[in-house]
């Protein structure tokens, strides 16, 4: 069931009504039921995967908790009898036992993700290697489909078990509540990747109907549909025309495709997240923000702190930090520091961790070399800008332009162009084609090609371009207004007439200008495929 479908709109409309009509203590149970019904639409057999993740995590989290309690009781009982060294040895022994359970849970669940997501990629690469060495045989591909949202719910659930292992919070004792945390339907399709301590604060609470939550949530949902249907799904037509025919659309067209895809992805992903957060808000549930106007970032590192925030913080907390402060990495640090001195020695372990994280981030987005190249390109840009830090400091001390509008505009444009060009790896069929198309922007660039009606042959009419233009202006306007606080709050403080005029206008815009047509079927969200 796609977010942008009549079926889904009917589904959430019924849910909203029933949710506030039933006794409050059953609300979370209704959400669990709704989440599983939503999941059933993706295919009944996929339920098994999410149930397995829930049950295995539940059992192991209780196991870890039991060991934690045993440890606490033992240490309390023998508080006076044990020396500090004894206590430490006992804690280490117990930590080791807990770690074994944690590793089992991670292996099981990431193992499933690896099999369903990466088997055919691995087989394709093995076949290519066999062929390169003159082998005749070919491994056949597995007939295996990716269960909906598996990358998202696996990461969310593994974050939970790691937190329980670290003692951040006790495990959830009610398996059905844990099942709701794992499967909460608005965020199942494309995140955000929530943390248990954040989401559980409002997920299991009893909620009375609140006009403010309802109206703010509905506004957010409408804004999300506007981005998805009016902008993303419209621009998608032109993007597909360009990227599917790289022999024809090169040079200036590759540049147009690159920029259009950047707008499409932004509108598609942030639109989907707006719908998710909006639905949750109507239900009285707080879901973490996943974006903070990323294209206004002054650097790529900052961009990644503001784009898909929950994935970035997941990788930081559960991969980057653990690798960076692991015992082997500390040995590497010691070795490099002694060998090359403090300045270089300090960098090497950080860069090893950074490369690892970006490799994993790339492959998380998709089982292809395109995404690995995309991850590595991000990594290279971040490391280069890190290395250029002294130059930036020197530059800013010499030329006092840092706070000028012109320089900030330059930084923002640099971020947009850099990120858009790296995103080209998402678009084209393989890495060499991506490089070729990127190169064509410099070798065969002729802006005159774009005039004389060529842009109208990409599948969009002049009216479409006008709608897109106005839509993007609206997007930019709202983003700029958000710098001074919540737009919805300002709207709420305005007169009722203004507020309802804006609602009606939005609704009509989506109805009229949403990218529908004869036999129209909204496209899937891009991040749903990750």
């Amino acid at each position, binding site marked *: 069931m796609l977010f942008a479908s009549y079926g889904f709109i009917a589904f959430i409309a019924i849910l909203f009504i029933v949710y506030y009509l039933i006794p409050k203590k059953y609300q979370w149970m209704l959400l669990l039921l709704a989440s599983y019904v939503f999941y059933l639409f993706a295919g009944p057999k996929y339920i098994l995967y999410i149930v397995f993740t829930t049950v295995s995590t539940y059992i192991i989290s209780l196991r870890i908790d039991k060991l934690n309690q045993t440890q606490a009781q033992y240490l309390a009982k023998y508080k006076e009898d044990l020396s500090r060294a004894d206590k430490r040895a006992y804690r280490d022994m117990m930590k080791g036992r807990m770690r074994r359970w944690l590793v089992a849970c991670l292996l099981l669940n990431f193992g499933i993700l690896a099999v369903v997501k990466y088997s055919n990629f691995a087989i394709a690469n093995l076949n290519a290697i066999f062929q390169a060495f003159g082998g005749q045989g070919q491994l056949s591909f597995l007939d295996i489909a990716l269960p909906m949202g598996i990358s998202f719910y696996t990461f969310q659930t593994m974050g939970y078990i790691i937190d329980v292992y*670290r*003692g*951040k919070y006790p495990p959830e004792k009610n398996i059905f509540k844990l099942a709701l945390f794992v499967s909460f339907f608005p965020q199942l399709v494309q995140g955000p990747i929530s943390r248990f301590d954040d989401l559980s604060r409002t997920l299991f609470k009893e909620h009375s109907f609140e006009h403010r939550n309802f109206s703010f949530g509905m506004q957010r949902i409408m804004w999300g549909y506007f981005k998805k249907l009016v902008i993303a799904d419209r621009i998608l037509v032109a993007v597909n025309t360009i990227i599917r025919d790289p022999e024809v659309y090169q040079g200036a067209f590759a540049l147009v495709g690159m920029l259009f895809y950047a707008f499409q992805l932004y509108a598609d992903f942030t639109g989907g997240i707006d719908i998710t957060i909006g639905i949750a808000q109507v239900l009285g549930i707080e879901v973490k923000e996943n974006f903070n106007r990323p294209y206004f970032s002054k650097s790529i*590192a*900052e961009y990644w*702190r503001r784009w898909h925030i929950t994935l970035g913080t997941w990788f*930081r*907390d*559960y991969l*980057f*930090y*653990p690798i*960076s*402060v692991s015992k082997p*990495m*500390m040995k590497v*640090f*010691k070795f490099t*520091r002694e060998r090359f001195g*403090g300045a270089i020695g*300090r*960098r090497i*372990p*950080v860069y090893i*961790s*950074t490369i690892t994280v970006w490799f994993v981030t790339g492959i998380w987005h998709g089982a292809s070399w395109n995404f690995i190249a995309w991850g590595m390109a991000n990594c290279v840009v971040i490391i280069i800008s*890190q290395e250029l830090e002294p130059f930036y*400091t020197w530059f800013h001390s010499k030329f006092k332009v840092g706070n000028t509008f012109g320089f900030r505009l330059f930084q923002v444009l640099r971020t947009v162009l850099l990120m858009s060009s790296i995103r080209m790896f998402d678009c084209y069929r393989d890495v060499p084609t991506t490089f070729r198309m990127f190169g064509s922007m410099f070798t065969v660039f002729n802006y005159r090609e774009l005039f004389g009606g060529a842009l109208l042959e990409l599948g969009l009419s002049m009216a479409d371009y006008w709608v897109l233009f106005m839509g993007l202006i609206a997007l930019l306007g709202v983003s700029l207004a958000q710098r001074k606080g919540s737009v919805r709050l300002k709207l709420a403080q305005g007169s009722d007439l203004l507020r309802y005029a804006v609602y009606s206008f939005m609704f009509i815009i989506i109805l009229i200008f949403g990218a529908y047509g004869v036999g129209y079927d909204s496209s899937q969200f891009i991040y749903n495929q990750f």
Partner: protein
Amino acid sequence: MEELLEILEEMHPDVDFRTCDTLIDSNILDSFDIIALISEIKMEFGVTIPPDEIIPENFNSAKAMYELIERLSD
């Protein structure tokens, strides 16, 4: 405390670490700095900071970092 301040000042000579208590919240220290810092703390103080202690509250000021080191060395 002086050793810790020396490490920090070497990383960012332009920051007043004695007074600043929003090192993370103001994005003065990023994750690269934190890792480098943890490695230096391990070398200087022999204290291992586990990943679950890497939270803003523990790194927002030199004082918070020093308290963390003292707590972990107990």
